C-alpha cells in the first residue's frame, strides 16, 4: 500500500492512495499562493500599476522589463496569474479510480485533473461541498475572465533566468508547470463527474474497498474519509474543527481503530485563537467606522463570512453601527447566501432546530430583509448608485490579486482612515499587500482558522489511537518562524511518518486476512471439534468462487457416482490430480492400544520392538512393518492396496485431521 504525495501544501492536499486493487485520490487542492508573485488585475485601468517600472538585472540588462515590474522593492510578474497544480508526473492519473473530496476548498484543482489527465473515474463529495465548491470556482473564473489580459509572461520561467531573479520568485517551485485558470466549461464538465454522498454513507468500490465520508466540523458538508476493507482501515483527516461554528460537529468516534491515519489540513495559524480574532475583528471594524473610515474585508464568498455576519448581527446594534451599510460583493454573493439557508441537515444542532420552526438557520436573512446587508454581483451596476460611505465591504479575492477587492484597495489605500482586515488565513497578508505599497490605510491581521490546532490533534490522536500517523512534513517540526515552539508540531508514538511533494510513501501495512463467505450448505456440513477449551476447529474442503472481488466458498461437488464397470475402469485409470489436498495429521499413536486395535481387526502374530525413538510393529504374516514414532508413522508393506488401506484407516483413528 502506497501513498503518492502530489501537493506540498499541507492544507490544500492532493494524495493518491493505492489500497488493495484500487487507486484513490484524496482531495484535489490547488495552491493559489503562486498568484502572490503576480501583479493585481485591476477592474479599471490603474495608472499606478501600469506605470510601475520594469525590473532589470544587476548588470543592467533589461530584457525582462516587459514581464517583471518592481513595486516598493518587490518584483512581480505582469501577466495573467497562474496556479501551482498538483504533481501530474509522479503517477499516471488516468489510473485513478475515484477522487474523494473532503471540503470545498480542497477541490479547486479538480478541473485540471478530471479534464486533462485522461481521468475516467468518479468523484465523491457531499452536496454542500459541490454546491459551494461550484460557487468558489465560478467566482474565480469570473474574476479572471472579466479582466482579459493580453500578456502572458513565460521568459522568466526559464530555469537559467529564474536563478537570477530576487526571492521569492527565485525560489518558486515547479514554475514550468504553473497553469492559468480553467474555464467555466471545464468546471461544469468536472462537476458533472461528481457523485453526491451523505455522511456515514458506505460506498463500495469494486467490492474490494469501502469508503465513507464523516462529518469533519470545519465547513458546510466538509468530511473526513474512512477507507477500509474488512481487515484494514485508513482514516483520512482533512480540514477538521472541534469549535462550535455553523457546521455539524466532527465525528471522532468513527476514526477509531485505524491502522493508518493520514492527517492534513490543520490550522495555518496555530498561535491565534479564532474566538479572540473574531472579537478583534469586530472592535477594529467598529473603531474604523466610528472614525468615518471604511472597512474592507477580503474574503471567500462562503465559509467564515457566515460566522462573521452572524457576529456582526449580534454586535452592530450594541456597537451603534445600525446605520452603517454592509456590502457583500461577489458574482456568487446571492447564491452563497441562499445556499447557506438550505443545508439544514449539514448544520449544527442549534441551527437545525431553527429550521424546524421553520426559520432560516442563518441570521443574515434578517440582515438582508432589514437592508443592513446588501449584496451585489460586482461593483458595476446597482452598487455604484447605492454606495454610501463609511461602509463595510466584504469581497474577494483574499489574495488581493483579482476580484473587486483590487478596486477597493486602490480606492481606499491612500487614506489612513480606512482599514483592511484580513480574516482568511490562506495568504500571507504582507505578501498580499506588497504590490499596493506604499499604503496609508490601516492593516489589521485577524486570521480566523477554525481547523485543528496541535493541542486538539494530540487529544484526538489519544482518543482514536491509530497505529500509524502520516502527515505533511511541515507538521513534524515547529514552524520556521517559531522554531523554539516544540508544542507546535505533532507529537505521537510511534513518530508520525512525514511526506513532502512528489514523494511516494510505503505505508506500514501488512494485510493478513480477507473476508470470505461460507455458503450455508457448506457451513452445515462442517464438523467442528473442540481442540482446546473455547477453540474449535473444522477442516474445510470447498470450492472457491471469486467474483467482483468477493470470495465465496461452496460445497465441493459430489464425487461422480461410479456406475457401470466400464466407467469405473476408466476412472481408476485416470491420473489423479495431485493438487487435491489431503488434510494434515497431528497427534501420536499409543502403541499398546494400536496393537489391541490391530488384533481386534483380525491381525495376528504381532510383534513389537522398541527402538531409540519409538516402536516397530511387525505383522509377520503379512510381511508388514509399521514404524511408530512421536511425530511419524511409516507403513511398509507389499503392494496390497486392500491391506494398506485397512492399516491406514486404523492409524488414522488415532490421529486428528487438519
Amino acid at each position, binding site marked *: 500500500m502506497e501513498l503518492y504525495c502530489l501537493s506540498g501544501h499541507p492544507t490544500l492536499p492532493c494524495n493518491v492512495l493505492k489500497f488493495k486493487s484500487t487507486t484513490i485520490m484524496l482531495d484535489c487542492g490547488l495552491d493559489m499562493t503562486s498568484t502572490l508573485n503576480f501583479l493585481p488585475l485591476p477592474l479599471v485601468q490603474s495608472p499606478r500599476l501600469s506605470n510601475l517600472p520594469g525590473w532589470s538585472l544587476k548588470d543592467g540588462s533589461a530584457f525582462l522589463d516587459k514581464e517583471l515590474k518592481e513595486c516598493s522593492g518587490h518584483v512581480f510578474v505582469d501577466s495573467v496569474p497562474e496556479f501551482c497544480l498538483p504533481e501530474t508526473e509522479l503517477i499516471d492519473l488516468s489510473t485513478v479510480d475515484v477522487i474523494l473530496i473532503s471540503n470545498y476548498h480542497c477541490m479547486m484543482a479538480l478541473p485540471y485533473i478530471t479534464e486533462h489527465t485522461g481521468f475516467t473515474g468518479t468523484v465523491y463529495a457531499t452536496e454542500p461541498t459541490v454546491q459551494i465548491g461550484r460557487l468558489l470556482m465560478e467566482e474565480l473564473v469570473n474574476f479572471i475572465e472579466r479582466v482579459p489580459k493580453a500578456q502572458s509572461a513565460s521568459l522568466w520561467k526559464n530555469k537559467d533566468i529564474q536563478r537570477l531573479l530576487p526571492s521569492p520568485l527565485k525560489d518558486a517551485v515547479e514554475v514550468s508547470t504553473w497553469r492559468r485558470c480553467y474555464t467555466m466549461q471545464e468546471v461544469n464538465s468536472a462537476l458533472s463527474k461528481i457523485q453526491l454522498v*451523505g*455522511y*456515514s*454513507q458506505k460506498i463500495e468500490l469494486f467490492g474490494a474497498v469501502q469508503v465513507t465520508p464523516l462529518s469533519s466540523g470545519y465547513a458546510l458538508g466538509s468530511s473526513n474519509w474512512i477507507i477500509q476493507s*474488512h*481487515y484494514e482501515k485508513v482514516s483520512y483527516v482533512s480540514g477538521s474543527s472541534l469549535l462550535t461554528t455553523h457546521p455539524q460537529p466532527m465525528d471522532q468516534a468513527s476514526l477509531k481503530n485505524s491502522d493508518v491515519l493520514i492527517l492534513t489540513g490543520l490550522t495555518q495559524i496555530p498561535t491565534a485563537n479564532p474566538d479572540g480574532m473574531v472579537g478583534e475583528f469586530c472592535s477594529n471594524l467598529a473603531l474604523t467606522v466610528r472614525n468615518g473610515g471604511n472597512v474592507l474585508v477580503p474574503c471567500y464568498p462562503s465559509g467564515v463570512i457566515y460566522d462573521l455576519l452572524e457576529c456582526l448581527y449580534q454586535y452592530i446594534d450594541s456597537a451603534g453601527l445600525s446605520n452603517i451599510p454592509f456590502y457583500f460583493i461577489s458574482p456568487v454573493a446571492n447564491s452563497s447566501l*441562499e445556499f447557506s439557508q*438550505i*443545508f439544514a*441537515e449539514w448544520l449544527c444542532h442549534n441551527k437545525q432546530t431553527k*429550521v*424546524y420552526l*421553520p426559520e432560516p*438557520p442563518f441570521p443574515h436573512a434578517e440582515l438582508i430583509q432589514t437592508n443592513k446587508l446588501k449584496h451585489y454581483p460586482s461593483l458595476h451596476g446597482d452598487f455604484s448608485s447605492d454606495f454610501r460611505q463609511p461602509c463595510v465591504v466584504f469581497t474577494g479575492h483574499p489574495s488581493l490579486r483579482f476580484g473587486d477587492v483590487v478596486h477597493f484597495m486602490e480606492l481606499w489605500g491612500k487614506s489612513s482612515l480606512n482599514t483592511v482586515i484580513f480574516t482568511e488565513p490562506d495568504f500571507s497578508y504582507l505578501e498580499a499587500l506588497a504590490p499596493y505599497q506604499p499604503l496609508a490605510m490601516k492593516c489589521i491581521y485577524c486570521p480566523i482558522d477554525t481547523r485543528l490546532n496541535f493541542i486538539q490533534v494530540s487529544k484526538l490522536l489519544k482518543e482514536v489511537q491509530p497505529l500509524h500517523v502520516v502527515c505533511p512534513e511541515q507538521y513534524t517540526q515547529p514552524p520556521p518562524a517559531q522554531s523554539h515552539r516544540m508544542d507546535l508540531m505533532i507529537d505521537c508514538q510511534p513518530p508520525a511518518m512525514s511526506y513532502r511533494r512528489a514523494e511516494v510513501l510505503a505505508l506500514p501495512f501488512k494485510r493478513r*486476512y*480477507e*473476508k*470470505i*463467505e*461460507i*455458503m*450455508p450448505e457448506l*457451513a452445515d456440513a*462442517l464438523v467442528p471439534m473442540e*481442540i482446546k477449551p*473455547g*477453540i*474449535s*476447529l*473444522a*477442516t*474445510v*474442503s470447498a*470450492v*472457491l468462487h*471469486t467474483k467482483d472481488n468477493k*470470495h465465496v*466458498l461452496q460445497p*465441493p*461437488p459430489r464425487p461422480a457416482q461410479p456406475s457401470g464397470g466400464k466407467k469405473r475402469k476408466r476412472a*481408476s485409470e485416470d*491420473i489423479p*490430480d*495431485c493438487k487435491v*489436498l*489431503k*488434510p*494434515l*495429521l*497431528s*497427534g501420536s499413536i499409543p502403541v499398546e492400544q494400536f496393537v489391541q486395535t490391530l488384533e481386534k481387526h483380525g491381525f495376528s502374530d504381532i510383534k513389537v520392538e522398541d527402538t531409540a525413538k519409538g516402536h516397530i510393529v511387525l505383522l509377520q504374516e503379512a510381511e508388514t512393518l509399521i514404524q511408530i514414532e512421536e*511425530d*511419524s*508413522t*511409516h507403513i511398509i508393506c507389499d*503392494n496390497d492396496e486392500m491391506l*494398506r488401506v485397512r492399516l*491406514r484407516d486404523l492409524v*488414522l483413528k488415532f490421529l486428528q485431521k*487438519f
Partner: protein
Amino acid sequence: MPEIRVTPLGAGQDVGRSCILVSIAGKNVMLDCGMHMGFNDDRRFPDFSYITRNGRLTDFLDCVIISHFHLDHCGALPYFSEMVGYDGPIYMTHPTQAICPILLEDYRKIAVDKKGEANFFTSQMIKDCMKKVVAVHLHQTVQVDDELEIKAYYAGHVLGAAMFQIKVGSESVVYTGDYNMTPDRHLGAAWIDKCRPNLLITESTYATTIRDSKRCRERDFLKKVHEAVERGGKVLIPVFALGRAQELCILLETFWERMNLKAPIYFSTGLTEKANHYYKLFITWTNQKIRKTFVQRNMFEFKHIKAFDRAFADNPGPMVVFATPGMLHAGQSLQIFRKWAGNEKNMVIMPGYCVQGTVGHKILSGQRKLEMEGRQVLEVKMQVEYMSFSAHADAKGIMQLVGQAEPESVLLVHGEAKKMEFLKQKIEQELRVSCYMPANGETVTLPTSPSIPVGVSLGLLKREMAQGLLPDAKKPRLLHGTLIMKDSNFRLVSSEQALKELGLAEHQLRFTCRVHLHDPRKEQETALRVYSHLKSVLKDHCVQHLPDGSVTVESILIQAAAHSEDPGTKVLLVSWTYQDEELGSYLTSLLKKGLPQAPS
C-alpha cells in the same frame, strides 16, 4: 434455521394506521406507527398489546422507523411512546422530524378541542416523543447497534418521505413506506439501488391502476377548474396541508399567470405559509428543477394564492379554495363542502385517495345524499370530480421498484385485499418472485440462509487464486484449510498455520510399498526403464531421475532394489506420504502392471 418474520399491526390488507413488525436475525424493528382515518374508536391505533402482552415495548423493539409525516404513518407515535411506553430510538428523516410534530399537534387539537375526546395524548407528550427521534440523512448508514443498520432512500411521496433498508449481517429487508416512481412538479422519483434484500415490503395503494401520463391529468385538472370558474362556480379542493397542496398550487399558479385569470385562489389554514416555508428550507429534498432554479426564483413563493378567511366562503362569484383535510372527514374542508354542496355550479375535486368511512370516500363512490350529524341529510348537487394526484406508485411503478431492488420475495401492505391479490399474481408470474399479503395480526415467516463471513488468511487465498487462474476451468478447484473458531472470531487458515497456531506438531504418515517386477537387468537399468515409462505416461507431472539412481514423481520416491532370493526379480520400493496418497496408490497399481518391453 434463521428466518425473517413480518407481522402487520396495521396496513395489512388495508390502507391506514401503517404499522409493521419485522424480526430479522434476532432484531425487532417496527416500521411506521400510524393512525386510521376511518375510525374514531380503539381501532384507529395499531394494537400494541400484540407486543406488550409479552413484556415492555422498549425491551422488545430495537428501533422504530417512520417513513414520512402523514398521520396514517406517524399519528399513533405519541400514544405508542408516551402512553404505552417506548424509550428506544425512533428514526426519521430531517423534514419528517420537522413537520411530524406540527401535524400531530393539529390532529390532537381536532380530536381533543373539536371532538372533545378524553384520554388523548397531550402537547407535552408530542414534545417528549419527538425527543426520542434520531434524524437520518439519505443514504447514511445508521448503526442502530453493533449488528443492526438502517439506510434511507428517497421515496418522493411527500417532502422528506423515505424508504428504509434494515440490515443485519447479510440479511436485509426494505420497507418502501409510500412512494412515487414518477417525478412531479415538486418532488423527484423514488430510487433504490440493486440492494437485493431478502424481502421487500411495499405499499400497494394503486395495485391495479396504471395511470396515464401526468401531463394529461394536469391538463384535465386545469380544464375542469377553468370551466367551473368561467361559469361562476366555486371550486373546493380538499388537500392535506403538505404535499399535494404544494404541487397543485404550483400548477394553478403557473396556469393563472399564463391565462391571466382573475378569480381568487385561497389556501385555508394558517399552516400554508409555514408549510411553504418548510419547502423552501428543505429545498434539497424537492426535484432537480426546483433545486436548480431556487436562487433565481423560489417556486414556493406564490403570487396568486392568498390566505383564506372563513367569511370568504359566502362571497359571491367564482373562487378556488384549497382546504384541509384532504378526505373531507373533518375541519375546514368539510365546513366549506357543506356550504357549497347544494349548488350545481360548484365543484369539488378530490385529488387523492379517500379512506373508507370518510365523506370523501362516500361522494366518490357516488353517494349523493349524506347523513350528517344530527340526522341532517345533505344533498350533494355540486359536481364531484376525482383526480389521482396522490403520489403513490401505480402498478407499473411498483413492478419497476421491485425490479430495481431485486428482492427474493415481496410483501404487500397499505392496499385493499382485492387489489393486492391482483398485484400478487402479477409479481409472481411476471417477476417470478414469491409474494405475500398478510392481514393485520397475521405473521409471515421467511426462512433465510445467510452465508457466514469468516476471515481467510491471505496466503491461503492467494495460493488458491493463483491455481484458479489455470486454464482448466471445468475441474473445480478445491480449497483446503482449517477453520479456527474462537469465541465469535472465525478464521480460515492453511492447515500448516492452524497446527502452528495451536502449538501442535504434524504427524507424518508415510507408506512404502514393495512392487515386484520381473526384470533380470541391473537395478540401475530397471530404475531407468521405470523412469522412461513414467515419463511417457505422466505427461503433466514432474518425473525426475536422480543421480543416486532413484526416480521421483512429484514428491513420491521410487527406488529399485535386488530381490534377496530371485535375481530375475527386482523390488521397487514406492514411498509416499498420506497427503500424496492418490498419486502413490495410482503409481503402485501402474507399476504392478509391469513395464513395456524395452526396445532392445
